[in-house]
């Protein structure tokens, strides 16, 4: 009597299958069935109208846009240096906090509401410059010496750097929550193709998309971008080719930081409250998005971010509500991390695949 493993092996004509693979497939199939069943229940129960579902998707997109921008920092550093920079959440937070002071100053000067476009640009610059500065500082102080250390060391250093930055900001600016001033130009809704979207969220989605496209073009089409890709592929050969590896790495951190700074402004427009701990959860979620989409891979960060944003916002209402789980709205994080676990089990390189090993092979 052939075992299940042998039957499957024969059927699919491959030697790589063993019982673990079968278990994983079973998990995958069961998950898909549960998700479909839960979603079907939720949608047919009519608890939310079509417009409300659509609103949830848009909220998820805006959230996802912010995650994508932050995820870029994680993914680029991983691509080039091979470790996860856990202090990146704090790079994001520093942009948001310093941006708050700029916004507050502009508000006191009356410019915030009178010249919204100019104010936004100013705060964007402030935020991006701060984040870039913190990211480059981190590289110089915390990571440069550890270039040749085993990968775990800079990872642990980054955790330490994360705490250091959090509490430095707390010491400098206090533990209180800071509220960005309201911008009248961003109040209310806007109609696009018959969809009614919040103005602030439309701005976030559009701005995120523009920055992501901009970064993609930068990395793929410009010479500096080529340098980054070369260093990501193989540092030693790139050095032999005459590329200044140190400078390329600083550029990586700087670009990642700038993206985080932009993400910080967009986050602040949507959520309006920042304090020293603001970077922690978005940082973790952004890291999750980067892994979800395929770590080391820029398009992966974008996809992962948008996916995670939508999964988080839509997941509880769509899937969990269908099983009548009480207080399902507090389970957004559960959905987000479960998605990560499932992706890692079923497709360990992430949705779009990990860039490093692929290119090398």
């Amino acid at each position, binding site marked *: 009597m052939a075992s299940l493993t042998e039957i499957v092996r024969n059927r699919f004509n491959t030697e790589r299958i063993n019982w673990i693979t079968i278990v994983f497939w079973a998990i995958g199939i069961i998950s898909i069935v549960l998700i479909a069943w839960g979603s079907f229940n939720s949608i047919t129960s009519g*608890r*939310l*109208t*079509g*417009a*409300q*579902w*659509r*609103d*949830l*998707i*848009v*909220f998820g*997109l805006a*959230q996802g846009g912010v995650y994508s921008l932050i995820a870029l920092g994680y993914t680029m550093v991983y691509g080039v240096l091979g470790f996860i920079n856990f202090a990146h959440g704090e790079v994001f937070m520093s942009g948001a906090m310093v941006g708050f002071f700029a916004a507050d100053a502009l508000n006191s000067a009356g410019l915030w509401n009178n010249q919204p476009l100019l104010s936004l640009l100013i705060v964007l610059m402030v935020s991006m410059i701060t984040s870039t500065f913190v990211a480059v500082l981190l590289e110089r102080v915390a990571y440069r010496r550890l270039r040749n250390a085993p990968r775990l060391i800079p990872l642990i250093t980054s955790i330490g750097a994360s705490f250091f930055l959090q509490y430095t900001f707390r010491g400098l600016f206090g*533990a*209180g*929550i800071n*509220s960005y001033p*309201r911008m009248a130009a961003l109040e209310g809704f806007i109609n696009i193709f*018959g*969809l*009614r979207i*919040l103005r602030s*969220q439309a701005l976030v989605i559009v701005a995120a998309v523009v920055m992501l496209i901009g970064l993609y073009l930068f990395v793929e089409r410009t010479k500096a971008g080529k340098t980054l890709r070369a260093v990501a592929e193989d540092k030693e050969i790139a050095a032999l080719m005459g590329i200044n590896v140190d400078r390329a790495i600083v550029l990586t951190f700087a670009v990642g930081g700038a993206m985080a700074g932009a993400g910080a402004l967009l986050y602040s427009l949507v*959520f*309006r*409250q920042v*304090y020293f*701990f603001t970077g922690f*959860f*978005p940082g973790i979620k952004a890291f999750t998005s980067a892994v979800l989409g*395929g770590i080391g*891979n820029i*398009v*992966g960060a*974008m*996809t992962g971010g*948008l*996916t995670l944003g*939508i999964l*988080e*916002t*839509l997941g*509880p*209402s769509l899937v969990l*509500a269908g099983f009548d789980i*009480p*207080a*399902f*709205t*507090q389970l*957004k*994080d559960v959905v987000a991390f479960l998605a990560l676990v499932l992706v890692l089990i079923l497709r360990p390189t992430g*949705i*779009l*695949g990990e860039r490093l090993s692929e290119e090398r092979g």
Partner: protein
Amino acid sequence: MKRVTIFRFFLVVLALALVACGGEGEEDGHPIYLMGADGLLSATFFENVGEDGLGMYFSGPGQPSTGAYSDFVSKYEERYGEGPIQSFHARAYDAANMVFDAIEAVAEVQADGTVVIDRQALIEAIYTTEHQGLTGTLRCNEFGDCASPVIAIFRYEDLEGGVEGVLSNVQRTFDFEASESGVGVVPAAPAGYSVGQVTIEPGAPIEIATLQAISGAVTNLGTDQVRGVEIAIDDRGGTLLDHPLELSMNEDDLCSSEGGTTGAQRIIANTQIVAVIGTSCSGAGVPASEALSEAGILVISGSNTAPVLTATGYFSDEGPQQGEAWSYGYFRTAHNDEFQGRAAAQFSTEDLGVTLAATINDGDPYTQGLTGAFGGSFAEFGGEVGLATAVGAQQEDMRSTLTEVEASGAEILFFPIFEPAGNFIVLQARDVALDPISE
């Protein structure tokens, strides 16, 4: 498949999903009352929500209107340069005074000036003594509830007024008669309870500790109470029984069970601490009261309100029963949330005329206790809780939760949570076509 192709495929799926939803949204917001509780009666909450929160109701501890209370507020303003920043300062002041009076009553003063305080006698004194405080007459029952609950419903209508403005804008006061059951009765101490004495050498200070939320988003809740205790010490001239009276440990309860546990352990390690005024948050109170009770240290909280810490069932036919997290030697001068839930529910049904409610808690014993009490009372008054849900305490995006609230058709949203989650709910309510009533 090439990466960018997968990405484009993903975008197409997204676009299709959006189109499939279709449907015109309602143009007009769905009117809803917003009601929070004492966790949000903090200066920073009003600074952060500004106009968005106007018209919001709050349930909370009724503030006294006596001359003695105004004197207290003047002292507070003089010493700290600002008015009270939360709503439990007077209860912390009363708690401190109860401790000092009990010390005076049970302490044995020896000939050379050494003071010996028997820990169990001190605790028994609190169970059996009546105390006149700023917040009224405090008589502790066998469960540790000492206050005669006065719950007020406040409304935020003055943009510049901050916490003081809200606390003075009372819509209705509920003065519940304190239950007589178990008052003055000393409960049985736990088996094997033998906790010794504190000996204070001549000239050494009599030390008390506070375990309050003095950091993070709810820093006002704890700091306000620490100030109440400091003023109580000042009012005694800084001395008690000819020894200096000192607040020697000011621990942080982090408004969480971890903070409560570590803070309590640090306090227990200092064998000279006679009593603790704390914790701020009930979530910290559960482990802290247990640990401190085992060590024999008297604990009085000025702001823990979760019913499980003392007794539940005040409105039931059988009367109050010991709560799951009750500890011997734990008391509170703040109300039990069964009363607050009832007051909020009664106000909503009688004064606001609503019948369908949605509640949001954040999983912590205080918020769960309060939404539970509200839900139970709301049903008794003829209403229905259409959606009883929760958010994470650190959650930032509340829009999906608020969409569910809108879908439930609720006429009032009761969310007795803390900052920053409460702030996000108020700031994001209009994003989901909810129209908080502000007139």
